[in-house]
């Protein structure tokens, strides 16, 4: 496997790996905040939400080679990462407004 393909493979999985780390992070912060009664609970959740979006946005728009030399793997990686960004916005957005603790 060529070096550029290997890199493309890493890019292919990075978006949803970041997404799943973000999911675990938000889930953990939500539970810990409720258990320990954090006063700035919402702020932590929103910060984590934004912190997860930054690498995902970079992956979705990062500068890349285009044209005929761009492999289909690289194109697939680009679109998977854009899907991961969209999925993060849609699925994680409720942490900014939904009820946290009961």
């Amino acid at each position, binding site marked *: 496997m060529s070096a550029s393909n290997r890199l493309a493979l890493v890019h292919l999985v990075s978006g949803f790996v970041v997404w799943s780390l973000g999911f675990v992070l938000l889930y953990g912060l939500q539970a810990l905040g409720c258990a320990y009664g954090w006063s700035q609970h919402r702020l932590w959740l929103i910060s984590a939400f934004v912190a997860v979006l930054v690498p995902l946005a970079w992956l979705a728009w990062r500068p890349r080679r285009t044209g005929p030399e761009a492999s289909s793997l690289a194109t697939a990686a680009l679109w998977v990462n854009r899907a991961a960004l969209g999925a993060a916005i*849609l*699925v994680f957005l409720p942490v900014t407004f939904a*009820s946290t603790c*009961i």
Partner: protein
Amino acid sequence: MFKRLLLGATPALLGGCSGDLSALDPAGPRAANLATLWWVMLIGAAVLFGLVMALFALAYRRPAWITRVTPAQWIVGGGLVLPIPILIVLTGTALVLGEQLLPKGEAPVRVEGRAQQWSWHFTHPESALAPSEILHIPAGEPVDIAVTSLDVIHSLWVPRLGGKIDAIPGKVNIIRLQADEPGVYWGQCAEYCGEGHDGMRFRVEAHEPEAFAALLEGRAP
């Protein structure tokens, strides 16, 4: 013949929708929310299934129509345009209906519920009512139940009155239930807790508010 078949199948189909432990036969606003969500999800799934089956049939009956669609159109149409609005509607519905189930503020009545293999014990603090295996609640009012467990994890569930909540040893979880009308409802432990789990049922009695007040004060209604 067809009519007879249809008539025969209807009770079989609807049989699962009624009864003491049916979440599809709601008897209170919270259970109604959950039933609505269930229907929205069923309709969403049916619409998607119908669309896919229609395309499938088209591929057999009118292959020429299908070949006119380019691969890019399939990906954008089938992968984005079709599922995303449906997923947004489902997620939004679940969020709005789910928020309304949460016990916000204090409910007028609070009951303590303790689970122990394989029964439930309910107490009304500061009342003359003795601890009981029957959950007494007023009708037409939200009731908070503070649920805990004395041994393993159980789950309190009255399908016709609301959602379910885990009963966890050393922790108190609160669930809000509401019955519209006086009557008898049934609950069931909803978390497998050993061999007696399936028989871990409990009776819920919803009373007229005056009768409930009398019950709490220990006088005959």
